[in-house]
């Protein structure tokens, strides 16, 4: 067990190192990304740029620059932005992370519950109208872009029907930290959660339904039925538990990627200043320190989420414990 955790940690360090090096190198290979020119401002004289370059240590070899950046990011934590002078990177990411975490965690709970419910219900009534209805809705959920759904939700809750009894409780767009006002935090997040979860309920529901129906072809399901178990027990205990493993694995990926910034569309639509939005803004102005910090933060979550998922799979499926 300890060996498994250690080897996983080691793998995480290797992955993050690789990603940081690649990010760093791609940045310096990108045309017109010269950080000195950017820091010096528009129309700066050549001498000013040279001075900035010397000041910021940008004239030193790349590996030294890389080392310095990592040191200022992880050890002294005083790395500053290339684009907005004086903006400290670590506090900016630390401020954006809770908003994204709130959004994605809440949505994750909804989509796991909704997706599993949808998948099991559709599989239980396979071929009949509840199945067709649920799969139709799921297809729509997958097909509609999340930013469009978000805008429609905003149109209804913030605009057209905002002043009716139904939606007057919805606060204006934006994020309120949980520590400030839990009630407001919750009310402001309800629709972002639903919007983000909608897509994933569709995806997970369809996948679980297929998985359960495939599992029904397995010999061990025939054994369970031959034992005289009720249809309900066969479905919930025997078929679903096997079919849920790919769902859990996919969940780990999706959760990690979303927390790392892939929820940017939802964040932008609902005015949430999260990590996705931060990354997007940094990319627009080629702000290397910010990009580096958010990319590493994202890779950290993807690796962690996958490690957690691996452990979950070990709990669900004893065959994986052998290796």
């Amino acid at each position, binding site marked *: 067990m300890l060996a498994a955790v250690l080897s996983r940690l080691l793998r995480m360090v290797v992955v993050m190192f690789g990603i940081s090096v690649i990010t760093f190198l791609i940045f310096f290979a990108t045309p017109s990304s010269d950080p000195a020119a950017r820091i010096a401002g528009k129309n700066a004289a050549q001498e000013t740029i040279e001075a900035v370059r010397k000041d910021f240590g940008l004239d030193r070899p790349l590996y030294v620059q890389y080392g310095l950046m990592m040191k200022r990011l992880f050890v002294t934590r005083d790395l500053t932005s290339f684009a907005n002078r004086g903006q400290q990177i670590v506090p900016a990411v630390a401020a954006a992370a809770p908003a994204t975490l709130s959004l994605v965690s809440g949505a994750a709970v909804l989509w796991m519950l909704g997706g599993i419910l949808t998948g099991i219900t559709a599989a239980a009534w396979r071929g009949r109208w509840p199945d067709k209805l649920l799969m139709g809705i799921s297809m729509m959920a997958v097909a509609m872009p999340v930013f469009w759904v978000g805008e429609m939700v905003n149109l209804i809750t913030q605009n057209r029907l905002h002043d009716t009894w139904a939606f007057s409780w919805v606060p204006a767009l934006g994020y309120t930290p949980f520590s400030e006002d839990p009630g407001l935090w919750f009310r402001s997040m309800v629709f972002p959660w639903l919007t983000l979860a909608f897509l994933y309920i569709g995806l997970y529901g369809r996948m679980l339904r297929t998985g359960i129906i495939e599992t029904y072809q397995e010999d061990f399901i025939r054994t369970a039925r*031959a*034992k005289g*178990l009720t249809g309900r027990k066969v479905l919930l205990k025997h078929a679903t538990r096997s079919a849920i493993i790919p769902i859990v694995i996919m969940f780990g990926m999706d959760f990690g990627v979303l927390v790392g910034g892939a929820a940017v569309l939802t964040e932008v639509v609902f005015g949430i200043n999260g990590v996705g939005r931060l990354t997007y803004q940094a990319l627009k102005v080629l702000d290397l320190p910010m990009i580096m910090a958010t990319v590493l933060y994202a890779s950290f979550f993807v690796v962690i989420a996958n490690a957690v998922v691996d452990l979950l799979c070990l709990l669900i499926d004893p065959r994986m414990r052998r290796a």
Partner: protein
Amino acid sequence: MTDLTPLTPAAAAGTRPILSIRDLSVSFLGARNSWTRVIEGLSFDVAPGETVALVGESGSGKSVTSLSVLGLLDPTTSRLEGSILLDGHDVLKLDEAGMIRHIRGQAAAMIFQEPMTSLHPIYRVGDQIMEALTSHRDMPKAEARRQAIALLERVRIPNAARRIDDYPHAFSGGMRQRVMIAMALASRPKLLIADEPTTALDVTVQGEILDLLKDLQAEFGMAMLFITHDMGVVAEMADRTVVMLRGRSVEQGPTAAIFADPQQPYTRALLASVPVLGSMKGEPAPLRFPVVDMKTGVAGGALPLRSKPDLTAPILDVRDLVTRFDLRGGLLNRRVARVHAVENVSFRIFPGETLSLVGESGCGKSTTGKSIIRLNDRSTGSVRLGDDDLFGLGAEAMRRKRRDIQMIPQDPLASMNPRMTVGDALVEPFLEHRMGTAAEGRVRAARLMDQVGLTAAMLERYPHEFSGGQRQRVCIARALMLDPKLIIADESVSALDVSVKAQVVNLLLDIQDRMGIAFLFISHDIAVVERISHRIAVMYMGEIVEIGPRAEILERPRHAYTRQLIGAVTVPDPARRHLRRNLAVTELRTPIRPLDYAPPARRYEEVAPGHLVMVEG
């Protein structure tokens, strides 16, 4: 149960049958909404305590019958007519809830062909047995556990109290089948349906399971409906036999009568095609199966192999072949153990000769075949094909050399590209080895199709349009496309029905007669091996324990394992009905060893000319 009265049908004995099937018809919903009838007017009875065998080839509807009894067919795609009376209930009139209340896991229980996949992989075996115990009656958990341990002891699983908490993957195939049997016995059923329960198992394990079922039947006094394609198993297990062909019962009656005096041509044909171990005594050369006239069921004469092996120089010379695989795990994926899959294997094959490698699953026979043609790159030793050392060849030279050794696979469907016509599949290696133009390849393929008993017109078909036996013929034609000197046939006839198996074996012998090709015939089926081999090598745990001429090995086996293997083979002779092998219950031994394991140096003793036996100790 030792008297002979159970052989009379239940009705005559005056007892009420436990299972009575009358005029059963089953139809399946096929493509374009048409119903296909797979069982037609089937009737038979099973009396309490009696064993009835349903026997037939694939597609005869025997498994469908057993699934019908438990109502396990999908009601949306199947239609059942007639009546199935099981323990006083009309199964076809019961709804799902009624089936659960009265039939499944109550009056009847079932065990299946595939013990490896029939247990739920993610629940402990104990929990699965306890589930069978508690789902029909209220029982405290502690009591259920106690009974589950008792059941595991009844099916002779060593250390039952400890093993109850293991998962299925920790058990070998035979042990899993025992768990399945324990689970079926949980409800103390009046009828046990066994659907090919030993087909997927090794012969020695098959013997153990058959013994166990006989013992348990006597202990529990239950009736058995035994579904099998294996006439040897029928002879050994069944009081009465129902022979099925394409959904109909062709002939039924006491097993002894069916074997001694089969009335129907199909029954006669079926019995004549069964390879019987020991039927080759005194035959000097490999012998074709007798050609059976399917109309009368009368077997004609059997043709021996005419050509003789050319013993001047071996075509294949394998010396000290060793194949080991590392098992990895733990921190940094280090090596933790080593599988000694093949250990110091040496043998020679001469042109026109057939050497058979026999042994049970995991003994390394397939790995030996793969190592010879370098399908795994972990082997050491030397393999000489003619004048070349295959292990010393470069990649390109080896590719060219592959022409000379071809393989015939176990599963022909899985080994052919489903999106390629058979013609393209045949011509592809011909072109790859630059043996001629595409047109020449076509001509050659057409001629070979003819030689393997198919027609040239079939070249345009796709693999799924052939039957199992035809597909194997296609694979043989594909192997012959390159004029090989040696063909490795890895369990090539194991998955085929008996009549088809006989035909394919005859075809292989025809080819040997005509072209003088040498065969390395890898099989677990000793009765077939007896037919086809000049020499036999017996493998156990990665090593050859005994090698020699066919008659020497089968008639005068010296090694204990060879004797055990031969003794476990079922023979279609009802006189063996009450035979007990009394084999010790064994867990499969695997050749997984610690990293520092050094295999002992083996010595072989020549007990007769060419007959070598490993010396123990």
